[in-house]
């Protein structure tokens, strides 16, 4: 069983005044065969979390369970895991075949013939069979990546841990490997924890994503949940490209006031806003429309044509606001325009805590949202 449970996991580096808390009170649960993506900006604690699960870093507090058994104090080799590293970490003095066989030789009682046939079988799956007798220095980046992947797969572990395995590949190869990895994980049905800072990988690869910031779990849910119903302003800004637009507004009796516009809210939304006046209005670029009678006055700055659509960067008061518009939209710099956004697509966040008060009504699939505690 490849279930993984993290219970109030904590990692502190250093002591006294120099102590840095890299991971703080992290609780997560993975079903057998699930693909979870740990995502967040640099230094958010995602790699430290992965290294704690692998046993390469000790946990300061908390418990790690793999297959219902606590492995918090176990050595990496006793955890039934395999890991793919960002830099591949292939043993340079061994051939691809020896690299892939090394784990089985060290960790199993299989005879050489069985090991060899398993290596060959996995190599065939990954189309690297002709490269098995080459050393890492003779392989290209993409080939090294496949050997590193093969080294993990051949072990048939309960859990795969992947630490930004695609970040050193060029854009085309990365997108190709992304699809291959997903297909591979789906066919192997091995529980996988995948660390990345790339929100495109997070959105496209995982069954669920867990978003971390400054060592704390911000939200865990399906990609669509996190996209459409972000738990807070950080998640809203981190997931989605281009990022969600944020506009500081004040609220007074059903009206949101920004330095450049006012926005009337419906009664049901107004009821959600209480006790305070300062909020942040969040709008996804694709929810903004160029409309002659829009509520938001803006000045066009730059148009970025992407072929299938274009991004228009505009200025609303002092705030830079991006809107996604149909391809071919022409807007000279400095031209005044108005933008509209339906209330159903509006996000509203508490300006102080960043907590989401209202999210858009987009699809989130039939799964409950588990917010960070």
């Amino acid at each position, binding site marked *: 069983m490849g279930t993984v449970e993290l219970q109030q996991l904590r990692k502190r580096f250093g002591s006294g005044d120099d102590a840095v808390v890299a991971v703080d009170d992290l609780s997560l649960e993975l079903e057998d065969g699930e693909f979870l993506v740990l995502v967040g900006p640099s230094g958010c604690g995602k790699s430290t979390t992965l290294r704690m699960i*692998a046993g*390469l870093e000790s946990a300061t507090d908390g418990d790690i369970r793999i297959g219902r058994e606590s492995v918090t104090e176990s050595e990496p080799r006793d955890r039934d895991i395999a890991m793919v590293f960002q830099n591949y*970490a292939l043993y*340079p*003095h061994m051939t691809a075949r020896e690299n892939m066989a090394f784990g089985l030789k060290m*960790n199993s009682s299989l005879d050489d013939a069985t090991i060899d046939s398993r290596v060959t079988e996995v190599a065939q799956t990954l189309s690297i069979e002709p490269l098995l007798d080459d050393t890492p220095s003779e392989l290209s980046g993409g080939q090294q990546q496949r050997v590193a992947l093969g080294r993990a797969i051949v*072990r048939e572990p309960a859990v795969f841990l992947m630490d930004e395995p695609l970040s050193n590949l060029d854009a085309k190869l990365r997108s190709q490997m992304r699809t291959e990895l997903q297909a591979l994980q789906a066919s192997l049905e091995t529980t996988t924890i995948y660390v990345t800072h790339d929100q495109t990988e997070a959105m496209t690869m995982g069954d669920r994503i867990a978003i971390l910031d400054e060592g704390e779990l911000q939200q865990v849910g399906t990609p669509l949940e996190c996209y459409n119903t972000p738990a807070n302003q950080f998640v809203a800004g981190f997931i989605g490209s281009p990022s969600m637009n944020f506009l500081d507004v004040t609220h007074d009796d059903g009206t949101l006031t920004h330095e450049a516009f006012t926005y009337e809210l419906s009664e049901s939304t107004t009821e959600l806003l209480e006790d305070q006046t300062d909020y942040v209005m969040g709008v996804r670029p694709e929810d903004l429309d160029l409309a002659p009678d829009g509520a938001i006055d803006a000045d066009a700055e730059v148009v970025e044509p992407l072929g299938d659509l274009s991004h228009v960067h505009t200025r609303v008061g002092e705030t830079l606001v991006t809107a996604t518009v149909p391809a071919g939209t022409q807007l000279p710099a400095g031209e005044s325009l108005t933008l509209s956004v339906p209330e159903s697509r509006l996000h509203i966040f508490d300006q102080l805590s960043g907590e989401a008060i209202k999210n858009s009504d987009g699809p989130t699939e039939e799964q409950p949202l588990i917010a960070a505690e």
Partner: protein
Amino acid sequence: MAGVPSEFELSTNARDFLIDAFQKFVLGLILTFTLFPIFMMIATSLKSESELYRDGLHLLPSALNVQNYVDMWARFDLVGFFINSLIIAGTTTVICLTVASLAAYAFSRYEFPGKGLFGLTILSTQMIPGVLILIPIFILFLTIQREFGVPMINTYHGIIFIYSTFTVPFAIWMLRGYFDTIPAALEDAARIDGCTRLQALYRIVLPLAMPGIAATGMFVFIIAFNEVLFASAFANDGVTPFAIGIQEFQTNTGTHWTEMMAAATVSSVPLLLIFALFQKQIVSGLTAGSMKQ
């Protein structure tokens, strides 16, 4: 170089030529200083005694006289001296590499209290001239013999102990720099693949550190093989190494220079062999291609 005046090109070429010529001159000078004694050693070993003392400067022997290479073996137990040297230098190298590679690995991979101070202390031992500790070591050895009944002077283990204390600090610093270049992720991968820390060290790190270990081992061997000061004080009577034994060509009746030079020439053969054997490992960049940079 379109558009650039030809005078400029000429002056650039001339300057390049002058720099090149100067570099070669300096290199030639250094090579002369380094190689001339070796040339003289070999040339003298091929001369007869009478030719050596002839008036005037004669760099090359008038005839190749290999008799010195035959006679030198009969005069003293050169083979014995040689074996002593190999035992002393070889054992020192093994002890030094074992201790230093573990210490250097710890310095490279672990953080521990007092790491900086400990590192500096090790380095500072290299700043004390050997002659200053000659007498303290003599007293120490006498004390050990008196208190524990373990003879130290004129024993293999005594001189090996002294050489190890000199070479271990130097070897730690040299190997530490080498271990630093081996990515820690390789050990992480090995530990996940089923190795203990120690297995990761000897299955992954040490094979990759072989060029560094070989280079360090070679330096240690040469230091121990060539050392004279401590050997003259602590390694006589049965454990005399070649560097001391060769002095026996200086007798009351005179110095047998030609045979001494023949012996010196023969003694440099093992060192040349070691260079030849380990050259490949020293220069090879074994870690290339292991990690995507």
